């Protein structure tokens, strides 16, 4: 995970739901450091 002040970036699987169907992609998303 890459860090910035007070938070951390994590690779996350996120769902994409289009009219043609659903699939997942891996993206960077940040959240509070715990």
């Amino acid at each position, binding site marked *: 995970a890459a860090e*910035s*002040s*007070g*938070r951390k*970036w994590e690779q*996350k699987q*996120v*769902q*994409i*739901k*289009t*009219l*043609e*169907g*659903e*699939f997942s*992609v*891996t*993206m*960077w*998303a*940040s*959240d*509070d450091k715990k």
Partner: protein
Amino acid sequence: RPFVQDATLAGFDWGSYLEKSGLLAAPVSCFRHVPLCAQWEDVYVGLKVEVLNTHTALPSKVYWIATVVQLAGYKALLRYEGFEDDDRHDLWCNLGTADVHPIGWCAVNNKPLVPPQEVHQQDWKSYLMERLVGAHTIPVDFHVKMADSLRCPFRQGVRVEVVDRSQVSRTRLAVVDTVIGGRLRLLYEDAGLGPSGEVLSDFWCHMQSPLVHHVGWSETVDHSIKETDTNVNMGSHPAFRRVHQNSVPDQFKKLRTVYMGATFFKEGMKIEAIDPLNLGNICVASVRKVLLDGYIMVGIDGVEIGDGSDWFCYHASSHAILPVGYCENNDIPLTVPPGYDQATFTWPVYLEETGAVAAPQRLFNTDDVGHGFTSGMKLEAVDLMEPRLVCVATVRRCVGRLLLLHFDGWEPEFDQWVDCQSPEIYPVGWCEITGYQLQPPIGPE
């Protein structure tokens, strides 16, 4: 100001205004007191979001993925995926509003992503995979953090002590009437009511303003306070109907502690100070009285009435008091006392003529805080002479921690010096997020 407007009703749009001027907006991270300031370093050009799709003929609300291509305060210029390098459909969107979400939000909330009707793609899955894998999105808790930071420790009915706008040397008891984005509308307890029940005198300031204090503050620091006229009945106004709650010190911002020993400010010492009634002027001034807890009363030389009613209270850590020579050293025109010529005025001669001494430089808070503002940046700023108004403004000069703000469309005589950490300045888009009315620039753009 001759009139008050609502920027939205007047057709003002920050996005097109910035594009026409070619100027930048001050980033959210410059404003320590605003929502999401701490999170804003995770917001940058290239982020992917899910946003309302305005390019569809579908009757229901649908969303599509977009990329941040430019940032201006809270506002982001977004480009829908599929438009590639075509910027004709770019849209400005406020990242603090509800219809911008992290990638994945639509799937979780069972809302299908529908591309704009102008873009055609054979295989959206492959296209989006290529665009999204490894990209960044806004934090999952973005809107939660926004809501958290908009919470305010003040509510209607809380009593405070605030500067008396009719006599700036004293405070006056007031009651919180309205809270918008941390800005308080305060009603003086004995202001009186007009024929329609309207309060005849109010005051707006941010809850972190140095002008507002807890009940008992004036007595604590030996500041003058107006005795409330108990013959004035405000009872029919909603803010006065409920049982009032006195504010306490914990509800206010703590100021920097200053040492008030033998080397502190003394009565008669000369300084330079922002004129509280002409905030674009930095004047020759004197310490008139030393209060407790690091506060001093300041008078502007040569224009004082003589009874002390125009003295103004500044804390020793305030940006608004400056050491002798500050203006000269920073190429700022010093407003000199009547009878003196700005071109020939010199401090050594003036000190000799008045038999006074300059306050020692070490007593002033001139720390360089590395604020990030630069001249030309746009922002939303309170007109401190009419503090209910938040206006479209431009940073005209930066001198240390001081910013000279210009109100767009207004004459330079309305310019005001503020501290870079003033709670009365906000990023572009702040009014839209909080629901505060923004004053657009006047005159032709």
